[in-house]
């Protein structure tokens, strides 16, 4: 069971097990730790490389190791290993298709008390603009384990965005994530499409509304680019869709959903719920929910928006 363990520890525990029997696996860290990482550093020292707080070099060293045939995991705080290294990733992993697994911790507002330098609310928009990069927006620790395993057979780069806080498991061990999205609840009329930690919120709200009058479906988009065929076949015939993410609205998962629908001329009204860039960055403290409130994605605001839209 992976309950009561963070996505990060679930992920690295699995990598540890795999790296013990596959000496070709190398972990490059930009001075980023974890209880699970301590074991890797101690027991697998020859497969562990610390580049210091130098994320650009982490991507470059990792890419060189991958060219040498290593299966490389690169690890840092999520905004730094993505946004700071965007151009390195573009050249090494986009232009040259060198396969890495880029692991970032702190998706969304996970580093709630650290201020906006550590909030990660643009990465889906930015990383999905790059060809040959698969985004795994991880929902729970069970999925984190599955993604760790999947990473070892990827031919191109994947970016694994992990939630920092412990979350309950949504999925059963052994769940299959290969379809790229999971239909957690079906509905004829209304769907909430969510990603990452917001899938937990989507399930809460759906449960709340299902007790009243609506049957709300929930789709967890955990892999981008989105599996458009599956998404369309699932929501075809639905009356309304809400997308939900802890991310700026511009270019995020909700935008990606709208692109899928628009390109297939599927005309379903969509309401995107996320963070407006007009609100800028947030220097509020006092917990994640307070920051979410600033952006209008706290539980109460989301529920109200969903209810209004599904009226």
């Amino acid at each position, binding site marked *: 069971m992976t309950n009561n363990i963070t996505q990060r520890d679930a992920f690295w525990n699995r990598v540890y097990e795999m790296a013990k029997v596959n000496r070709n696996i190398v972990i490059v860290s930009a001075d980023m730790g974890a209880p699970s990482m301590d074991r890797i550093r101690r027991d697998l020292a020859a497969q562990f490389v610390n580049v*210091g707080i130098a994320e650009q070099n982490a991507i*470059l060293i990792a890419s*060189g*190791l*991958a060219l040498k045939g*290593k299966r490389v995991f690169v690890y840092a705080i999520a905004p730094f290993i993505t946004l700071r290294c965007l*151009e*390195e990733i573009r050249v090494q992993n986009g232009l*040259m298709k060198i396969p890495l697994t880029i692991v970032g911790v702190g998706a969304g507002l996970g580093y709630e008390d650290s201020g906006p330098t550590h909030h990660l609310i643009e990465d889906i928009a930015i990383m999905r603009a790059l060809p040959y990069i698969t985004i795994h927006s991880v929902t729970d620790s069970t999925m984190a384990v599955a993604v760790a395993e999947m990473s070892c057979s990827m031919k191109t780069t994947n970016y694994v965005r992990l939630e920092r806080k412990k979350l309950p498991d949504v999925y059963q061990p052994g769940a299959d994530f290969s379809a790229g999205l999971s239909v957690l609840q079906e509905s004829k009329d209304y769907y909430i499409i969510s990603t990452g930690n917001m899938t937990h919120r989507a399930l809460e709200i759906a449960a709340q509304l299902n007790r009243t009058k609506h049957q709300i479906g929930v789709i967890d988009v955990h892999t981008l680019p989105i599996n458009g065929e599956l998404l369309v076949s699932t929501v075809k015939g639905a009356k309304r869709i809400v997308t939900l993410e802890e991310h700026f609205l511009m270019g995020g998962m909700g935008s990606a959903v709208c692109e899928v629908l628009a390109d297939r001329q599927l005309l379903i009204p969509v309401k995107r719920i996320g963070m407006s860039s007009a609100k800028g960055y947030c220097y509020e403290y006092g917990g994640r929910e307070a920051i979410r409130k600033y952006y209008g994605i706290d539980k109460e605001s989301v529920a109200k928006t969903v209810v209004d839209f599904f009226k």
Partner: protein
Amino acid sequence: MNKLVSKLEKKSFEIRKRVLDICVKAKTGHVTSSMSCIDVLVALYYGGILRFDPKKPEWENRDRFILSKGQASPALYTVLADCGFYGCEELDKFAQKGGMFGVHLQYDVPGVEITSGSLGQAFGVAAGIALGAKMDKELFLTIALLGDGECYEGSIWETAMFAGHNRLNNFVAIVDRNYMCATDFTEDLLALEPMTDKWSAFGWEVKRINGHSFEQILESLSDIRSRRSDRPVVIIADTVKGEGIDCICNIPLWHGIAPEGEMAEMCKTVLKGRYIDLEEKNNDK
């Protein structure tokens, strides 16, 4: 040695001439940036330094040569064609429709390891390859050629620190120190000196040579497989941007362009003149 040096000088002239021709024909290409590092490339590829097999570009024991200053691609493309990695006719299609390569280096050309052009990146990738070779206890060398202007990129120093700390003594850097960037002389726009002290402080063994003297280039590389040092080595090669074509040497803004029309003819004449001088020098010996 003298015979080898004469051979290399002659080869160097041929490569320079071809690089100028293909860039003039394509009306593009970094002519001056190529000229400054051609002697180093010729020493590496024809002076018995690099281990490679044009028939098997992916040979796993080959030395990894990483041209981090990817704008000098016309020079490397010409050398690779001349060494037999692909036909010389490809050079005539440089940066043109139907050609296999353009102005910046690209990884899918036989004999080329990486795409570069975005400066400050390939050096780090090279260090990763060298580290991988150490992990696998392999004996090939990784040799990276950097531009001096590229050394303004912070990532160069992230990598330099990493390679020094990790004792990558299978890693060689050569800095093409031509003292110029695109718009100005390096020491005027933002001083890079003292280069020797900087690299030394980052844990590297440093050699400083005249990058247009084959005697000095070969001497500096003569022990790269038998050094007793556990440190990576950097060779700072003092060069001239545009070397061989005096009429475009050391002129700010003569960067990233190819001469056209009368200027192109003048460049060809000047280059030829240098070779006649060279022949006379060799005949006098």
